[in-house]
């Protein structure tokens, strides 16, 4: 079946611009996660949704970052007033439910470059 998809695969923007990154989870998965991965690092948790609501947004670095999942399926990560330090690969994952034993399935990521 279809896996997690993310669009765009690459995004180049200028400092100060607004960007939106999209994630399509596996159908039927209630939990959706956003991570950020900088070069040479493991993924860093940003936020996760259980259904439509953000259950834990403690990883969002500041109020320039925001994410939504209005219908409990597709999610959009929004970054306002982008900074060069936001350059990274943004990963999305989904799982059937949220829990320690659940397997998270990852998309290929969106590589964001802020010039």
């Amino acid at each position, binding site marked *: 079946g279809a*896996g*997690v998809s993310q669009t765009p695969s690459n995004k180049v923007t200028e400092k100060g611009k607004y960007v939106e990154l999209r994630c399509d989870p596996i159908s039927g998965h209630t939990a959706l996660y956003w991570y950020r991965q900088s070069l*040479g*690092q*493991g*993924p*860093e*948790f940003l936020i*996760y949704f259980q259904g439509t609501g953000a259950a*834990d947004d403690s*990883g969002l670095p500041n109020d320039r970052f925001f994410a939504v999942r209005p219908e409990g399926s597709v999610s959009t990560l929004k970054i306002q007033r982008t900074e060069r330090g936001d350059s990274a690969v943004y*990963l999305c*994952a989904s799982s059937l439910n*949220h*829990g*320690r*034993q*659940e*397997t*998270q*399935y*990852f*998309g*290929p*990521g969106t590589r964001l470059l802020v010039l």
Partner: protein
Amino acid sequence: AQSVTQPDIHITVSEGASLELRCNYSYGATPYLFWYVQSPGQGLQLLLKYFSGDTLVQGIKGFEAEFKRSQSSFNLRKPSVHWSDAAEYFCAGADSNYQLIWGAGTKLIIKP
């Protein structure tokens, strides 16, 4: 604080040789531990996971990992590597909020 450490940034192994990638964790209770592989242009793919029970866990692509509580380790092994195993490998653990905490990764380089 809970943490996962991968001491080796990169490892070079000859094709056909055995492999062991190290992972150390710091958790108070029984940890839930995972190994993922990330190939260029690919998403992270789960190789195996440990929750409880048998401490030797079998995964996909011929990988296995052994949980050793006394050493706080969850090392990944493969008896004979193939050139297609060249990738970056991440160890992760689930914390008390069920969030994955990740190691920094180990890049595996295969010599022909």
